[in-house]
């Protein structure tokens, strides 16, 4: 006759895990030799969010990598893309920001693994 349901609501409403802070852009050319470089990925990420690359690096990358103020400006694209500790650290930061595991497949990192 009557399908009225009365429930007592708990406070905790939603139970899915936290969302990634930035959009999960897919790196271009994953699983091919022409995989996108990390610098290119950073530029595209900033572009997709309508912020300047400068803002992105200064306000997001630097605090996340725990770098000093003048440390970022001195890094060349080569250092970012060529592998080594810096690249790995940066890839980890980008992974936590976007949740894209493919970022670790940037060419130099693959070669090292």
């Amino acid at each position, binding site marked *: *006759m009557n399908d009225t*349901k009365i429930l*007592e*609501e*708990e406070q905790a*409403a939603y139970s899915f895990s936290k969302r990634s802070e930035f*959009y*999960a852009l897919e790196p271009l050319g994953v699983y091919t030799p022409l995989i996108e470089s990390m610098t290119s990925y950073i530029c595209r990420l900033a572009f997709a969010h*309508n912020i300047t690359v400068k803002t992105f690096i200064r306000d997001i990358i630097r605090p996340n990598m725990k770098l000093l103020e003048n440390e970022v400006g001195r890094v060349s694209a080569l250092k970012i893309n060529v592998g080594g500790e810096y690249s790995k650290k940066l890839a980890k930061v980008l992974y936590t920001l976007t*949740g894209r595991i493919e970022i670790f497949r940037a060419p130099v990192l693959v070669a090292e693994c």
Partner: protein
Amino acid sequence: MLYTGKQTLEEKLNKFKRVKIIHPKMNQVMSELKSLIEKPSGNEIIMVLGPSGVGKSTLIEEFKKEIINNLFDELEKDRSIIPFVSIELISPDSGVFNWKDFYVRVLRAMEEPLIEKKVIYENNSEPKKRDKISVGQGHYLTSPALRRSLENAFYYRKPKVFIVDEAQHFIKVPSARKYLDQLDSLKSLSNLTKVPQLLVGTYELKNFVNLNGQLARRTFEIHFPRYDISNEQDFINYLGVIKGLFEYLPIETSPSLLENWDYLYERTVGCVGILKDWLTRALRLALENNEKSLKMQHLRNTALPINKVSKLVDELSQGEACFIENSDRILEVRIKLGLDNENVNQKGNSKKKNVGIRNPKRDKVGGMKNE
């Protein structure tokens, strides 16, 4: 002693406040909504219209839970997508709807980073000449950088639906021309982002839609009605809701309450939300007076004043009238389309004049020529 008594009072009240009623009307609207969102037939704007206090906000909450349950696996797989975007529109204090504020609020709801640092990339041929206009600059009512960010956010975050509660605030604009622009902006937002929009609001929204043919076609309205006691099924269901709520009250209810169902209906006009608020007020009064049961006197003391109820009734009868398919209106449309010419003729012939009344035509005056 007094302190603990007070605490239990608050606890009891809060417990009752948390009670949610999933009643038949809500189920009906919910199933309509689900089918519209799950199987979209286009980039639509869906509107849920209902009187104040009928349970629209509760409906949204339930609907959100439903979306999350359906998307749970997908959400865990891809951490960048969000199940929905939901905001409550703020009534603009200047009396003019502020799109810039709207964009900021939507972006905040989507947990977008660096909102105040958004720029717009104008695509000039030389990358050095990029025109960067930041959010702080430009017109105070709108901001292309924010709009572009919003479109991007919808594109990448892939929400299933964009829910706007209290959507009647959209119509707060200074002139009639702006009135149309408002909905056009919404429509293009929905077109670009391909995310269906769910506008939830009072009957005021209804007039907003039928201004423009293109919009009337794109929008889909769902009526969330109150319980109308002239309908037998509604009457039974409403009594069921009242009984159900009485059972959830932490104190006993005097049996005379249900006998006065007409009073309960009169002061709630068949809206479940109003009923629950009223019972909460009455419960507080009864608990504060240390009564063991809820009596009619508590209800009478906390009922909505009749002036307010009368205003509510006026508003909802006006709103409900919009949903009735009037036979005169149907005929008018058919005549305009050239479908029912016979009816027109018949209607024309049926108008007979009273005996002894002449046709309205001009009589000759003067008569100089004849002489």
